[in-house]
């Protein structure tokens, strides 16, 4: 059978005809074509497409096999081929989304379940020790504390709103863990965001600033977060991200409370906050519940402080207005790296 099957790759950007066939095959399997796929592995038999698997960065998606060709041999070869192509592209740590009923098959292909949203979707990774090693490293950063809080922030960029939230949370806890979203797809690069958080939270004694990871608001755990400008929210994605937090990250650090700011502007973040109460606090789950504490957003001059507002003001180069919303460290970075005319601006606001 396999002699008559041809394996090939399709690059969605440059092969629209091949892509149309992929779209059709996915539709036949009740799947949608993801717009972010870098490359597809495809299998043809007598000129017609019978199987495909997409790779988006280090995430395998859009895996489909025409019903009459389903069987261990072809699907195994397909996964094998994607894993090899990912390796050629420098991706060794892979994630995979699939339906719960296909979990068993992928387990046979070296994938291990991270988290399942029952009846909907499973996130797997291709290592038996990936998240375990990550949690081991987190456990070494545990602090003696009865009430341990956590904030996950993108800080794009860090504002007085972030500072306010952290101050409130730190005052309410024995120890506070602050994670900075690591995925580098925001306006401000990760290195800058992390630096600004570290500087901006200076002087609060009972907190640790952590680097984010692929297991927390990343392209793997929460793809739609980074499409938030499009207003796309997928509740399965928020569930995956939040259950990972509840099952692995929170127990490793002993986190019992998660703090969030109310979200008046961004529908994705607002939905995430709402889902947080469901998945961290109410949903049945072997891991202990985590109390979600929503604090009202810091208000300056009658307006809530938000990073998106700072970015809008920055696009107008309105440093006067920005100055009221950010700590000196953020202002300094904005002036030195993002001002159209850095020198005079520094003098005025430095």
């Amino acid at each position, binding site marked *: 059978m396999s002699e008559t099957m041809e394996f090939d790759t399709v690059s969605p950007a440059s092969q629209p005809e091949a892509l149309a066939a992929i779209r059709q095959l996915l539709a036949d399997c009740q799947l949608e074509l993801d717009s972010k796929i870098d490359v597809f592995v495809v299998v043809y038999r007598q000129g017609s497409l019978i199987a495909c698997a997409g790779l988006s960065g280090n995430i395998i998606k859009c895996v489909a096999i025409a019903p009459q060709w389903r069987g261990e041999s072809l699907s*195994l*070869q397909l*996964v*094998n081929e994607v*894993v*090899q192509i990912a*390796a050629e592209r420098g991706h*060794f*740590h892979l994630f995979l989304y699939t339906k719960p009923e296909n979990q068993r098959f992928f387990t*046979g*292909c*070296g994938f291990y379940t991270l988290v399942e949203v029952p009846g909907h979707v499973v996130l797997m990774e*291709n*290592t*038996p*020790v990936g998240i375990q*090693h990550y949690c081991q*490293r987190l456990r070494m950063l545990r602090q003696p504390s009865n009430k341990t809080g956590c904030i996950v922030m993108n800080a794009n960029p860090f504002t007085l709103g972030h500072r306010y939230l952290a101050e409130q949370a730190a005052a309410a806890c024995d120890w506070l863990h602050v994670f900075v979203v690591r995925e580098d797809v925001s306006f401000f690069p990760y290195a800058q965001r992390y630096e600004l958080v570290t500087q901006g939270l200076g002087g609060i004694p009972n907190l640790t600033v952590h680097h984010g990871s692929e297991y927390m608001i990343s392209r793997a755990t929460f793809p739609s977060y980074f499409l938030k400008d499009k207003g796309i929210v997928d509740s399965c994605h928020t569930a995956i991200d939040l259950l990972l937090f509840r099952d692995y990250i929170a127990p490793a650090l002993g986190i019992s409370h998660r703090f969030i700011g109310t979200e008046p502007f961004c529908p994705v973040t607002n939905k995430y906050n709402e889902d947080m109460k469901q998945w961290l606090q109410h949903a049945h789950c072997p891991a202990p519940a985590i109390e979600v504490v929503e604090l009202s957003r810091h208000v300056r001059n009658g307006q809530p402080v938000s990073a998106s507002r700072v970015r809008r003001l920055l696009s107008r180069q309105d440093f006067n207005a920005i100055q009221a919303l950010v700590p000196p460290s953020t202002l300094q970075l904005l002036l030195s790296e993002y001002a159209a005319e850095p020198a005079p601006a520094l003098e005025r606001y430095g």
Partner: protein
Amino acid sequence: MKIIKPALAGTLESSDLQVKVAPSPDDTLEVVLSSEVIKQFGQQIRRVVDDTLARLEVKAGLIIIEDKGALDCAIRARVQAAVLRGAACEHIDWEKLS
């Protein structure tokens, strides 16, 4: 031999195995083995892997093995290939591979 980057060798086909190697963040050597025949042959597979790593003088790294019932010679060859790729080795000491 020092593993300096992640690398992959082998496949998940029946009678083969897939070996993934990666540098170890804390300089320890960790071998994680999963096999369809772990009950009968787990110890034997581990011996072959440990011996192959020792001959290549691999002292640190994360070695993940998905075995599909491979013979010892295949295990040895796949582990060697993954380590050589991960060590970015230019000059191969063939005697150590025998």
